[in-house]
């Protein structure tokens, strides 16, 4: 899964199976935001095969740890998005109580 050079933990390529642009691009963005990362990118070797290669080069920390921390960050981001979204829907519903008749009419525009 990880193709690294022996002894140099800073730079590594991770091959993720069964993934595509959905996760890889989001990971690449979150990796870029980490100040420990010098370089990061992803490539898809062949579109028919569901495999993504993520390259991470860091300033000193082992690349594996940085990738793990990044995934945790992305998970935190997702949880925050979910919470904020749920609150926003609840607030909207409280301010505009769903009236079944009018919402049916609103659908036909």
């Amino acid at each position: 899964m990880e193709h690294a050079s022996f002894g140099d933990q800073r730079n590594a390529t991770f091959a993720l199976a069964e993934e595509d642009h959905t996760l890889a691009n989001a990971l690449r963005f979150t990796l870029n935001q980490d100040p420990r990362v010098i370089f990061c990118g992803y490539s898809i070797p062949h579109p028919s095969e569901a495999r993504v290669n993520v390259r991470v080069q860091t300033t000193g920390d082992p690349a594996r740890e940085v990738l793990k921390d990044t995934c945790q960050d992305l998970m935190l981001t997702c949880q925050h998005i979910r919470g904020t979204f749920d609150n926003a829907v609840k607030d909207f519903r409280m301010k505009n109580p769903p009236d079944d008749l009018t919402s049916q009419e609103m659908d036909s525009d």
Partner: protein
Amino acid sequence: MSDSDSEAMADAGVENPKLPPHLELRRTRVLCKADAPTSTDTVQYSGAYASLGVDNSLRFDDFRNNFRVQVNRISHEDMEFDMVGVDPSIANALRRILLAELPTMAIEKVLIANNTSVVQDEVLAHRLGLIPIKVDPRLFDYLSENDTSNEKNTIVFKLHVRCAERGQRLTATSNELTWLPKGSELLKTSESLTSTSKPETYTSFTCSQDSMPEFAGNPISVYPDIIIAKLGFGQEIELEAHAVKGVGKTHAKWSPVATCWYRMLPEVVLTEEIEGKKAELLKQKCPANVFEIEDLADGKKRATVARPRACTLCRECIRDGDDWEKRVSLRRVKDHFIFTIESTGALPPEVLFTEAVKILEDKCERVISDLS
């Protein structure tokens, strides 16, 4: 000049020196010129402005402070909301998951007993697969090759229509699809029939689906009034359809959204004052009525931007000649997304979005466990 600015600001005790305004514009806005948009990429790299002393990294606290969601309209079928403060890669990931990786139930196997209509068997089966089924897919399990169909992973529907010899031709709609909560009724014929054993059907339900609490008073139905086939005199269709759980990646019939898209918030800025006849001209040019005329105190008219959200980027306002491009600046805000989700009816749109975010979290979880 920018270096001394940042130094001066650092001396003044500001923790985070800010970017000069022209760079901030390039970082946060897509500039839509007449020929092509510029500065379209988001500046992701944390050290992009390191030479200016500006930290471009996004800490989670900053994200939490800047992120907000505002719902514009919501109904049982579609919703539109604004998501501000998130990067396009995450918005796109959620859009891709909504289209392709949220499971639904759809008809997969069709057992045709009789089909004398003009619609071929396979075309009929294909059409049946595309009919949306109004049931919560989270209540069901996936059916794999080796499993037997039981009440936890299959829904069975029956269709039996016949057009009479006289009278009118018949249109078979999805209203004719009846739910069979006890499972399949078609018998499997076997070589040696032992009279003592119960005849086997194509599914093995151990209990009836309408005895389950979720479906007790709430029968599973399909979306009504969808034309399946049209029958002439004497033609008949008799079939049984089995629906299973799947994701949009395998086949689009399993996609829970009719469609789902996002666009960036448009920002229209008048860089020069536009008065008098030119203002009238500008207001007429725009087909989306973005501009409005306001009357000034001394009788002159001035153009203002009244509805920037309506801008569709048709670029009519900057088309004729170079002058207009200098006066009107069309921009898009890079981190403000207007998301629209149209559900097919199985799950309400806000539930779909929440599930999509959960799936993105699960993907990260899987990568973490692979790495450890």
